[in-house]
């Protein structure tokens, strides 16, 4: 039954535009939050490509604990959107096998904090299939996982483990910061023949967050990136985005901190060029180089711990590419090098003030 249901026609709902490959915005845009945008990416891809299958804990009948696959099992069948046992290593291992057999799996790991039982399957298998088999085998798995803090999740629902994935050779790594990119990048990830680990900062699922927990939550409605085409489009992997043009310094960041950096730069009264890295691996070096060579000053910021964090790679890259243009040492603002504490969430999180201090440091140095 489900197999028949899964033989989708290209005109099924959710793929309103079928001019595949087009990066054009479709006319049918609407306001979406990040959950809806991610849902829509699944919907579009399940509709377009019968080889796409989705699996994960609670993703089927229930529609995911964050609702990212709500109603999709009903729409595409139980063989396309599959509830999984609680076994992250099993989910990723099975996804690899599905992929080797010609399917295009999208695996959800319910929280990034719970991805580690699947780590061996990522490091030793998924990342190296193509390499070790000299290209005879590969598996186009996308692993989606909510990450980051700011939701009082304590040390088991707040981590940002992106750097341990970017450190593996052979998986692409993405962290998104808004609904438009989330959908476009997720579609690119699903279409990619390389494995992609796709991080979704859960704090900004429902609205951008500028790092001030005392302010009332805002929705994506007023944010330009909250306008999302209904149908198919892609945002390319491997391309950073300059989200704000500026001349005083460059702030290189990604995920939730993009929004914190924007607010901090405004408060600091500087003209900051803010770069959302978006795809952490492979890194868009050109966009970083161009910006920092122009501004001469650079602040790197992320929510994850500092030591051997992804920021270290950004600093090293900028140092190499822009050394003769730098007017001050590159600075870093990150989470502290401790597990993510429940009670001290807002002392741990790189709030605006910490970014402002970082900006000042970069600006003051002669």
């Amino acid at each position, binding site marked *: 039954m489900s197999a028949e249901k899964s033989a989708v026609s290209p005109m099924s709902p959710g793929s309103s535009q079928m001019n595949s490959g087009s990066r054009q915005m479709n006319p049918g845009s609407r306001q979406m939050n990040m959950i809806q945008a991610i849902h829509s990416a699944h919907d579009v891809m399940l509709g377009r490509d019968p080889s796409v299958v989705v699996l994960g804990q609670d993703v089927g009948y229930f529609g995911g604990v964050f609702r990212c696959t709500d109603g999709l099992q009903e729409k595409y069948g139980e063989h396309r959107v599959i509830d999984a*046992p609680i076994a992250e290593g099993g989910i990723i291992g099975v996804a690899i096998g599905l992929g080797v057999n010609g399917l295009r799996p999208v695996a959800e790991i319910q929280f990034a904090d719970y991805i580690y039982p699947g780590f061996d399957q990522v490091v030793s298998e998924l990342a190296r299939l193509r390499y070790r088999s000299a290209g005879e085998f590969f598996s186009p798995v996308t692993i989606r996982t909510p990450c980051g803090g700011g939701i009082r999740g304590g040390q088991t629902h707040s981590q940002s483990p992106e750097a341990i994935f970017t450190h593996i050779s052979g998986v692409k790594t993405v962290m998104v910061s808004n609904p438009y990119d989330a959908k476009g990048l997720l579609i690119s990830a699903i279409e990619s023949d390389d494995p992609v680990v796709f991080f979704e900062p859960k704090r900004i699922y429902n609205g951008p967050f500028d790092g001030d927990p005392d302010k009332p939550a805002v929705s994506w409605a007023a944010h330009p990136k909250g306008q999302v085409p209904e149908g198919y489009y892609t945002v390319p992997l491997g391309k950073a985005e300059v989200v704000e043009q500026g001349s005083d310094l460059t702030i290189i960041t990604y995920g939730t901190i993009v929004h914190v950096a924007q607010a901090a730069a405004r408060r600091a009264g500087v003209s900051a060029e803010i770069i959302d890295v978006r795809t952490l691996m492979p890194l868009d070096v050109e966009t970083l180089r161009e910006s920092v060579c122009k501004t001469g000053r650079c602040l790197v910021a992320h929510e994850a711990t500092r030591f051997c964090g992804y920021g270290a790679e950004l600093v090293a890259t900028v140092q190499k590419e822009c050394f003769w243009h730098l007017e001050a040492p590159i600075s870093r603002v990150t989470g502290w090098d401790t597990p993510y504490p*429940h*009670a001290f969430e807002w002392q741990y999180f790189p709030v605006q003030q910490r970014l402002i201090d970082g900006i000042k440091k970069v600006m003051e140095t002669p």
Partner: protein
Amino acid sequence: MSQQPYLHIPRPTARPGDKPDFSYLKLSPAGEVDRPATDARAADIEHLALKLVRVLDDDHLAKGPWDPGLDTETLVKALRWMVLNRAYDERMQRMQRQGKVTFYIQSLGEEAVSIGAGLAFEDGDMLFPAYRNQGLYLMRGTGLVEMMCQCLSNSRDMCKGRQMPIFYQNSKKNLFTISGNLATQYPQAVGWAMGAAIKGERHIAASWVGDGSTAEADFHYALTFAAVYNAPVILNVTNNQWAISTFQGFAGGERRPFAARGLGLGIPGIRVDGNDLLAVYAVTRWAATRARAGDGPTLIELVTYRGGAHSTSDDPSRYRPKDEWKAFPLGDPVERLKQHLARLGHWSDEQHKALEEEMKALVAEAWKEAISYGSLTDPPFLDVSLMFEDVFAEMPDYLVAQRDKLLAMQRQQG
């Protein structure tokens, strides 16, 4: 039958709007299952994994060889712990709804799993509980105030603000720190038990996972190591039928009982009525005696029902019938023990009502004290430098620098 391979997708017997249907649950009549000697060979008692050990019958009387013959005083004590457990849960659930604590997990309907087992251990035994085993912390002497302060992340929080609510610990009472990661503690319990054997001590270890967590690799590591080294450990599977939205079929429960998971390794499994305190106690005691005598590990499946949501972040009305718990054939553990005591002539409705009031008052009083030690929103707060402690035994220089930087920043902001 199918003529070709097909993908089986487990489906629960009832979804929202359907009539609850527990016809899948294989029950044995109370008193029917034999009680072998504790040194029985695993191969001779495999049937225990497939039956259901029950002591309390439909008339609320204790029956058969597993009747542990507990005295009235102990039964009343057990009932008191269960009623306290429920009163504590009810209060904390409500406090979460009022925004006083950020999160909560109640054990509604599963109280006998912790309280029944808890009665069977010795003080020197080490317990590795899961996040729905608060009953073990309560009965082993973790005070209500202490537990509430943990949930509040306040100035008296045993975890110094580092953990979400309900992740208790009590090293003095041999209760390990609860992990939010599933089944991770299962092999650790086996390791602790192996350690006791290495040291020549007679202490045993026990751990708990849910039906869903049996899918994790750690579950299987634990069974393998326990079998290989004949570790003095009791491995419990609390089968409460639901793992958030997925029913126990998604952990393989459709095919064989979870108690049978160890049979292939030669570990005896016992499937027991998890809502029958007498049966839970008797089976745990049997396994503890076996482990202490050097006869090795036991896997116990406790058949129960998750009466509430998975957590305060969950909404079960989206995936299961609202009234499913009421239709659960093994009933409510509190009610069943209460009826048993009443049937023996040692308990009355008035006494029960008084007990509920007593426990409610106890909890209310504890809450009043706990909240006076602060919360995430009201002082006194924990000292923020605690964030940097205990990452290592001694704080390395780079963390000292990070701590000082944060403190300087806070001073600057006043």
